C-alpha cells in the first residue's frame, strides 16, 4: 500500500487500518497482561514470554522471507501476537526448550501449514498449547504461586515453591483473583490487567462484543446452574468461576481472533456460546482441570459450518417456496 498509483479492482478507498497496525495494537493491548505476569511471576515469566515471541517471529521470517533481516522479523506483527499469546498461556515455570517447541508447533503446524495468516483454521497459540499439554502434562500443570512485594525487593530471582491453581483447588478471595495474586499461567491470572487490554481493544474497534459476551455469558449460566444444582448458589461462585483459569484471557484475546472466528454476527455469538458451554462442561464435569483450550479448538473446527448456516438474508430477499 505504499505505491501512490494503484492499479486494481475496487474498492479504491483506503482506510488507515492495516493488518500491521491492528496486530501491533493487539500487542499494545497485551502489554498490561504481560507486565502483570512479569510482576507476579518474576524473571521466569519474562524469559518464557521473550522466548515464545522471539521464536515465533524468527520462524515466521524464515518461512515467509527465508532471511533474518530486521524488517522480515518484525513482519506484519501477527507472529509477535501469536508468540506473545502463547507465552501468556504457559505456566511461568515452563522449561525454555519446551517453549521453543511450542512456538514452532504453533507457527509451523498451526499457521503456515494451512497457508499462513488468514488461512489458518485453528488458533496457532492454542494448537501449540494443546500439543505441549499432551506431550508434557506434568510440566504444563506445575504452577508456582505469585511473588509478593518483599520477594522483589530482596532478591530478583527466587525459587518459588509449587502451589495449586484456583481450579486445582486453591482457596483465594475474590479480590486476590481479580488482581491476579494466584497461581496460574503467566497472563491469565490478573482479571484487572485483562480488562485494561479489553477496554483498549473495544475502544479501538478491534474486537466485536458478540463472541466474548456469548462466551462469558454462557459460562456464567452454566456455573449458575451447576451451583444451583449443588445447593450452594451464590453470585460469588459464578464470579469465581469466571475469574479462575484462562476464561477471561481467552474471552478477550483468543475467541476474538479475526481469522479463527466466524464472519457473520450471529455466527460469532453462537461461536462464543459453544466455547463457553464446552469449557464449563470440561471444567465442572470432566477430569481435565481446564477446558478453555479444548473448547476453543473444538469450536474453531465448527467455524466453517457456522459460517455456512448463518449467512444473513440479503436485503429484500423473499423466502422461496
Amino acid at each position: 500500500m505504499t505505491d501512490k498509483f494503484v492499479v486494481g479492482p475496487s474498492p479504491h478507498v483506503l482506510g488507515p487500518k492495516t493488518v500491521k497496525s491492528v496486530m501491533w495494537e493487539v500487542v499494545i493491548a497485551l502489554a498490561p497482561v504481560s507486565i502483570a505476569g512479569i510482576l507476579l511471576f518474576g524473571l521466569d515469566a519474562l524469559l518464557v514470554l521473550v522466548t515464545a515471541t522471539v521464536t515465533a517471529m524468527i520462524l515466521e521470517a524464515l518461512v515467509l522471507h527465508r532471511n533474518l533481516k530486521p524488517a522480515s522479523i518484525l513482519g506484519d506483527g501477527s507472529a509477535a501476537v501469536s508468540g506473545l499469546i502463547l507465552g501468556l498461556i504457559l505456566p511461568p515455570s515452563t522449561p525454555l526448550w519446551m517453549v521453543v517447541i511450542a512456538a514452532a508447533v504453533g507457527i509451523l503446524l498451526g499457521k503456515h501449514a494451512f497457508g499462513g495468516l488468514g488461512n489458518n483454521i485453528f488458533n496457532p497459540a492454542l494448537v501449540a498449547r494443546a500439543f505441549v499439554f499432551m506431550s508434557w502434562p506434568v510440566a504444563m500443570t506445575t504452577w508456582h504461586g505469585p511473588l509478593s512485594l518483599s520477594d522483589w525487593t530482596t532478591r530478583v530471582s527466587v525459587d518459588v515453591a509449587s502451589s495449586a491453581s484456583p481450579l486445582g483447588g486453591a482457596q483465594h478471595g475474590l479480590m486476590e483473583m481479580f488482581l491476579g495474586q494466584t497461581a496460574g499461567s503467566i497472563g491469565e491470572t490478573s482479571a484487572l490487567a485483562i480488562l485494561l487490554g479489553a477496554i483498549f481493544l473495544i475502544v479501538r474497534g478491534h474486537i466485536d462484543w458478540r463472541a466474548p459476551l456469548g462466551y462469558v455469558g454462557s459460562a456464567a449460566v452454566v456455573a449458575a446452574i451447576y451451583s444451583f444444582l449443588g445447593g450452594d448458589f451464590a453470585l460469588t461462585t459464578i464470579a469465581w468461576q469466571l475469574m479462575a483459569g484462562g476464561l477471561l484471557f481467552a474471552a478477550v484475546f483468543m475467541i476474538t481472533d479475526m481469522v479463527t472466528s466466524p464472519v457473520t454476527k450471529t455466527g460469532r455469538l453462537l461461536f462464543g456460546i459453544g466455547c463457553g458451554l464446552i469449557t464449563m462442561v470440561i471444567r465442572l464435569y470432566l477430569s481435565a482441570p481446564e477446558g478453555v483450550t479444548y473448547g476453543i479448538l473444538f469450536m474453531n473446527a465448527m467455524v466453517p459450518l457456522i459460517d455456512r448456516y448463518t449467512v444473513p438474508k440479503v436485503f429484500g430477499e423473499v423466502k422461496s417456496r
Partner: protein
Amino acid sequence: MSEYGLFMIFFAAAFFNNFVLIQFLGICPFLGVSKRVESSLGMGMAVLFVMTLASLITWMLHEFLLFPLGLDYLRTITFILVIASLVQFVELFVQKASPTLYKALGIFLPLITTNCAVMGLAIMNVTEGLNIIQTLVHALGAAAGFTLVLVMLAGLREHLEIHDVPKPLAGVPVALLAAGILALAFSGFVL
C-alpha cells in the same frame, strides 16, 4: 460401561470415546468421504442406520444363539455377515432414493461393510456386557459422534479448498493435519 446411565453412555460414545478421534476406528471413510458437507452427512446417516440395526441384530444373535450354544468363536464371521447384508440394504435404498448421493459416496458405501467402527461397536456392545437398551443408545451415540466429526472435517476441507494451502500440503495432507488437531481438541474430553 454397563454401569453408566443411558445419558452417559450416549455422550461417552459420541465424545469421550469418540470412535474416530479417540479410538481411531473408521478412519477410512473419515478421510474418504469428507470432501463435501452434503455427502458426509449422507454417509453419516448411512452409518447411523447400519450401526443401529447391526448393533441390535448382532446383540440378539450373540445373546440368544452364539453365547448359549458356546459358539463364541464364530462371533467375528457372524457379525460381518450381518453387517454386510445390512450394507446391501442401504446400498439398494440409496441407489434408488438418491442417485447423486450414491455417486458421491462411491466405493465408500459398500465399504461400510468393512468399516471397523461398525464392527468395533458390535463387539464392544457384547464385551462390555450392555443390555439391549444400552446397546441401542451406545449405537446411536457412536453414530452421532461419527457423523459429527465427519461433518466437521468436511466443513474444514471445503474451507481449506478456497484458501492458499501450500502446494505440497494441499488436499489430503492438510486434511490429516486438521484431523490431528481435531483429535487434540477431543483429547480434552476425558472422564
